[in-house]
């Protein structure tokens, strides 16, 4: 409260410079927290607008906000308390130390104690800290008199439009700088480059979370347009910090993943098994043995397990690509789905297992060939009111 009152001083002082005495009285009254002024002589000595101004000291909006904030704080405190208790209970149930029980352990415990077969992971039971579940809210955007802090408050989305203004300003600055360089005939900075290849713009949801504001699709498109424009300028690297704020790195480096060391069987042959090779509805496992002669076994049969040539080609694709077609033996068990899905699953399994038998150069080439990417596309569901996933009935006037 005391902080808020300090803010109040400045405008009141400047307003009441002529009324030295009332000012003092004014403040003391406020600081003793009695907003209603009953004294007659105060009313007499002040002009009308002064009284009005004073009564507005704590605006209705601010009052409501304070109440809401208080309520929210209490609510969050209660939630945090319950979460902590729940965590301790879980730790005890799992027979672990409650003091060192982390969120990771909580997730594991929930998965163990409440097993759920629901397909959508987001619909399964969960226990997360309350800050993650209840969205962040904005602090008061106005002072006690109801005047907004932010100069873009009346746009309704001050944070978003601030970003847009900043981006536009950076574009202008970039143009000015370019002109300057041209006028001076200076050579451009050789090491000043902006590498955006390994990151993407924030998605709409991420941006909304960052700005704590809901934005429309059109506004998001505009945001992307402006940022692309800024990033495409030759001197964009001078605003690198600003641009980086709104980008998210793709991050997922395949080679950072651990490549398993092969185990050895009774004959002293190295082998590696990849479980869960999935494609469409097919699933299976693939075992690679090295050294081998290029023998392929699928569910006990050889390559003729597949009737069509396309599927056979798919199975040998990674072997031919890496040139290992006569250096390893392949055994796979596959079930579910059709020939195309099964062949795709085996293709991925062989490529994934081959990582242990090839050098990093070849790994890079396999990555560029897309052999190491899991194809997680599934059949799209049929929609009600139309004959297929996308297909619509022929339009008839009546």
């Amino acid at each position, binding site marked *: 409260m005391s902080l808020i009152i300090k803010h109040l001083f400045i405008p009141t002082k400047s307003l009441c410079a002529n009324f030295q005495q009332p000012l003092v009285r004014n403040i003391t009254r406020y600081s003793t927290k009695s907003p209603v002024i009953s004294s007659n002589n105060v009313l007499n000595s002040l002009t009308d607008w002064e009284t009005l101004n004073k009564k507005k000291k704590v605006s209705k909006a601010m009052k409501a906000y304070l109440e809401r904030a208080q309520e929210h704080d209490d609510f969050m405190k209660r939630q945090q308390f*319950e979460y902590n208790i729940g965590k301790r209970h879980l730790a005890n149930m799992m027979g672990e130390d409650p003091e060192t029980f982390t969120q990771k352990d909580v997730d594991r415990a929930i998965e163990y104690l409440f097993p759920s077969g629901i397909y959508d992971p987001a619909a399964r039971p969960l226990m997360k800290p309350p800050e993650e579940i209840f*969205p962040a809210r904005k602090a008061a955007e106005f002072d006690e008199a109801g005047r907004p802090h932010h100069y873009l408050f009346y746009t309704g989305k001050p944070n978003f439009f601030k970003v847009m203004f900043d981006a536009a300003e950076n574009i202008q600055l970039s143009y000015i700088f370019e002109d300057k360089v041209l006028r001076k005939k200076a050579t451009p900075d050789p090491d000043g480059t902006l590498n955006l*290849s390994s990151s993407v713009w924030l998605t709409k949801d991420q941006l909304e979370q960052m700005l704590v504001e809901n934005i429309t699709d059109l506004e998001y498109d505009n945001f992307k347009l402006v940022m692309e424009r800024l990033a495409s300028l030759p001197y964009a690297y001078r605003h690198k910090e600003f641009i980086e704020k709104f980008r998210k790195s793709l991050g997922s480096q395949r080679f950072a993943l651990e490549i398993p060391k092969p185990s050895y069987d009774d004959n002293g042959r190295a082998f590696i098994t990849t479980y869960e090779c999935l494609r469409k509805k097919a699933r299976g496992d693939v075992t690679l043995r090295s050294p081998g002669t290029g023998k392929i076994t699928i569910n006990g049969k050889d390559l003729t397990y597949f*009737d069509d040539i396309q599927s056979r080609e798919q199975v040998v694709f990674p072997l031919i690509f890496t040139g290992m077609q006569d250096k390893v033996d392949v055994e796979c068990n596959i079930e579910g789905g059709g020939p*195309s899905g099964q062949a795709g699953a085996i293709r991925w399994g062989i490529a994934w297992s081959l990582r242990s038998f090839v050098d990093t150069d070849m790994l890079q*080439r396999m990555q560029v060939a897309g052999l190491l990417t899991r194809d997680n596309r599934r059949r799209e569901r049929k929609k009600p009111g139309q004959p297929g996933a996308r297909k619509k009935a022929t339009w008839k006037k009546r």
Partner: protein
Amino acid sequence: MANKMKIIKKSMAWYYPNYLLPKIRGVIQCRDYARNTTFQSYYQNPVFRKEDQAKLIESSELSKIAAFPVKPPAACETSSVYHDPIVNKVINHIMEMGKKSLARSLIEKAFENIKRTQIERYHLASTQQEKDKIELDPKKILHQAIENSKPLLQLTPIKRGGITYQVPGPITENRSLFLAIKWLLEATYEKERTVHFPEQFAWELLDAASNSGKVVKRKQDLHRLCEANRAYAHYRWQ
């Protein structure tokens, strides 16, 4: 605890303003039923053929591309020497109702017919010079046939003053490839009922590869028409 959370969520309705409620639901459940069935836009197209990769290695761009996620190659694409994107395209044009293996067997039979005819011609040829001229590779013949059937110009109907003019203009690479394959197949489908598709298709390909036949004539007709309509060409930009 999970149940507790759900109860809390219900009891929050009175507390949170309405515009916040959908947001809460979004955070807890994220129910996106229309899941993405495609790869994100930043996924790169795969480069899986050995000669293409060799080019990338030469220009040292391979390691740059390797930093990106890459789409997996389609089920009909391999790095094998027998794989040919143009043949794949033709297979897809022939395919009906998704019966790809049938389409593939048809084109393979056509290739066999071409091979037989060409070998017969080869053996009938008397001198070595004549023998050298005869192309024995059916895939090369297909490529040559398509190259010969590709139109260079096209007519686009443009309406000016209530009259539709056929205005000649340049054609994109993709469209001319599409038209070439389409014309070859249309010429093939105009056959006697007793003649099978692979035989007729083989003849058409051999004709087109030697720069004669229905399809090449169709292409030349189009070019002639474009030449005749030269006077309308200015409608493209006026």
